[in-house]
């Protein structure tokens, strides 16, 4: 299971980073989403992987660390909201400029 989770995080991160370095907004946003998935799994695993145990301190000897689950929930909500924001802003920029390159503003404006 460690191998599965670790490779999932690794593959998601690699794909996310690759896409994030593209030049157009759509792949970049998809890349960002993949990265946030990767980080969510990473956070989830940061408390240690325990199978079939309740996430509370109980009289039983094993339990899953509950805190990463709370962290992950917050992280999911935030990254979801942020992705929505970036989609809206990117759409606005695309509709205005008719161009979806992430790169700096046109050279014709003569800016460094």
């Amino acid at each position, binding site marked *: 299971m460690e191998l599965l989770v670790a490779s999932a995080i690794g593959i998601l991160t690699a794909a996310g980073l690759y896409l*994030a370095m593209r030049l157009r*907004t759509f792949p*970049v*946003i998809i890349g*960002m989403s993949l*990265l*946030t998935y990767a*980080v*969510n799994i*990473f*956070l989830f*695993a*940061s*408390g*240690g992987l325990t199978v079939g145990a309740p*996430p*509370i*301190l*109980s*009289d039983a000897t094993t339990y899953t*660390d*509950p*805190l*990463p*689950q*709370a*962290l992950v*929930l*917050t*992280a999911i*909500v*935030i*990254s979801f*909201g*942020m*992705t929505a*924001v*970036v989609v809206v*802003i*990117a759409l*606005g*920029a695309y509709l*205005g*400029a008719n161009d979806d390159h*992430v790169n*700096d*503003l046109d050279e014709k*404006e*003569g*800016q*460094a």
Partner: protein
Amino acid sequence: MSHWIALPIVLPAMLAAFIVLVARFHLTIQRVFNLAGTTALVALAAGLAWNASDGTITLYQMGDWAAPFGIVLVGDRLSTMMVLLTAVLAMCVLLYAIGSGWDKRGQHFHALFQFQLMGIMGAFLTGDLFNLFVFFEVLLIASYGLMIHGGGTKRLKAGTQYVLYNLLGSTLFLFALGALYAETGTLNMADLANRVAAIQSEGSAGIRVAAVLLILVFAIKAAIAPIHFWLPSSYAEAPGPVAALFAIMTKVGAYAIIRTYTMVFPPELEITQGLFDTWLMPLGLIGLVVGMVGVLGAKQLDRLVAFSVIGSMGMLTTAVSLFTETGITAALYYVVHSTLATAALFLIVDQVREQRGEAGLALTATKPIQSAALLSGMFFVAAIAMAGLPPLSGFVGKLLILNATYSSELVVWAWAVILGTSLIAVVGFGRAGSTVFWKARQVADTEEPSEDVPEQPKAPVLPFVAIGMLIALIVAHTVLAGPINRYLAATSAQLFAPQPYISEVLETPGKDLSNAHDKDYGDKKDDAHGVADEKEGH
């Protein structure tokens, strides 16, 4: 337990919600409430700073839960000082935004402004790293709204870049937090300090990765080279008052570095040796060079100021990376100076843009602008402060930093770079100022005098009052350099003796649990989670 320390976060949160829900269509009411709220915030921050000035550490436990489980707010000298600085800056910026009518050019300026303040205040006050992440997100999401306030294609494009860059930063922050939690099992800063200190140097790979990731995240926020690329276009395209408010945002990154790397990973810690002197200091110096060369090379006035921000953050990083008491004292003096000078410059540049009309901010000579004498005078003073010429606070700050670098091995490099870039900055600012303000006269002389000036409406007074306030603060920061420096020395001494902070956080008892049974374990988890959720729900 005093509740005052939570108010700088709660007040803007309530006010922002109120403005959005009740006063959405009434600009006057929004202005009145925002001004009243910000004034109250200044008073509140002053009270908190006064309370912390004798070295008291105020602790606030959310929902009365004791520290490593519950989330705490902590007010010490550094936190309250940064809160006060933010409140004062917000006051000036708000006056400018109202005076110049920027708040009318799009919706929800005042609500976003208050949300932004809430995030910044929270980031300064929190004693928990995950909570710091949440407040970072609060201030970022408000800043996305402010950054594209007023719309326009160029601004939206710059906004997209800014948001994407910060999204990447947030993801990195989460990776860092996950790694820290996996290694130590806690995210409370005081608790982390204890546990990290107990880690042996073998098997410390994980915690070292976490330390580097964390400093990377804060470096993105603080625009330290080589990850400063987001700054010039974001700050240049953002509305003037928003860029001025953003002056404090880079300092949030610097604050986070100072806080985390004096407490959690203190300089004497064996496992993080080399992080600062080998990496951070050269990067600070490179940032200084990049910024000041950018000042010289910029073709537009707003980009010039944005590059000077990178330069000043480089200078700040150099001072911080010493991680000695004198270094941090100098850095803190420079934080205040650079925040005020940056804000003043962005506001002045915005006025120039307003007055010049079509010519915009390109560094070419055009007709003289209205109230050119006053504006150019203000630009002159603010540029002197920013470039670090005597007699203003930039010079004092630079002296303090030069003095502090004596202890470093890189002292020759630091002196050479700091002094060399000062010269470049002076030339850059001088060239820009003379092109924009002086050459205007020549253009006017060559043109026929029939071009009538009075067609322009008279410039409003309030923006100049706001800029004047900032310049007055810079002057005060210079005149009172002695007492301020003594206070900052005490602040930095408190940072380097974190034991009272740690024991205050960890040893204060929370809610009485003696008559609670099994079910309370579950509640505890719900609480940590609930508080975080509540934060982000604001």
